[in-house]
């Protein structure tokens, strides 16, 4: 079944076609969400949300890009929306604590993230890198995750993020510079 037929069947509400789509993309979507959210439960929740959106919005898909590009775009958008909502909740909780004088610590520190797909000998370094990735601005973070975790080319990333290839190159350069800077700060702190 080619992609065009697949899309036609999906638009007709064909359940086996949707099941096939889920099994084809579940790991790709989960990996993207996991890279961006750095929390397994949140990533699984957003993955479900991505496929529900795909099912409900397939009739809006015009076929101007590849189906995979469209799904990656939804995954990135949903993950970033989730992060923003979580940050809003954190800010609200912070102010609530200020006004109510409640005791207890705020959970602002994302903690230690352990990606299940990293080789055992690289776990510690990867955790350090993920902590630095989490500090990157949204677009740099998305481009870096799609390139490094999902192995997408700059052209594919440009289609997902709806920017030019030159912009993706610039995002990647800035992301690496920021990572080098924050990892440098991390070493300085650890040396003391």
């Amino acid at each position, binding site marked *: 079944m080619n992609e065009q037929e697949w899309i036609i069947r999906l638009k007709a509400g064909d359940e086996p076609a949707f099941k096939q789509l*889920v099994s084809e993309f*579940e*790991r790709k979507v989960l990996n993207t969400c996991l890279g961006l959210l750095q929390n397994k439960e949140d990533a699984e929740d957003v993955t479900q949300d991505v496929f529900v959106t795909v099912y409900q919005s397939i009739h809006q898909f015009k076929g101007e890009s590849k189906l995979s590009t469209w799904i990656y775009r939804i995954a990135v958008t949903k993950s970033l929306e989730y992060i923003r909502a979580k940050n809003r909740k954190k800010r609200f909780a912070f102010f609530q604590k200020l006004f109510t004088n409640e005791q207890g610590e705020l959970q602002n520190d994302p903690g230690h993230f352990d990606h*299940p797909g*990293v080789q055992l000998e690289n776990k510690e370094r990867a955790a350090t890198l*993920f902590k630095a990735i989490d500090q990157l601005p949204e677009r740099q973070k998305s481009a870096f995750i799609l390139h490094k*975790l999902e192995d997408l080319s700059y052209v594919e990333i440009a289609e997902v993020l709806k920017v030019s290839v030159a912009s993706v190159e610039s995002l990647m350069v800035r992301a690496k510079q920021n*990572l080098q800077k924050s990892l440098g700060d991390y070493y300085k702190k650890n040396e003391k």
Partner: protein
Amino acid sequence: MSTYSEIENSIKGIQRPEADPYLYSKIFNRIQTGAEEYLEPKFVWITACSFLILIALNGLIFQKSRIVTQTKQQEVKQLSNAMQLINENTINYN
């Protein structure tokens, strides 16, 4: 101490994690339960536009009926003046 490239290479060849074996069932359940709550944007827009048109029509009719009443009152006044229906003996209850 590791260099930046060593740290960056730590995620090279990273494996995609296994998805939840019940993922499809969970998604399908969410679609089925959410289907009752989910409204197509097209439907929402049509309903909103219908309400706006209805409100505008109501306003228009209300304004027109006010103009008609005012004109009728003026006509009655003019007619009563012309026919001298109001004189000093008429009791004004206002």
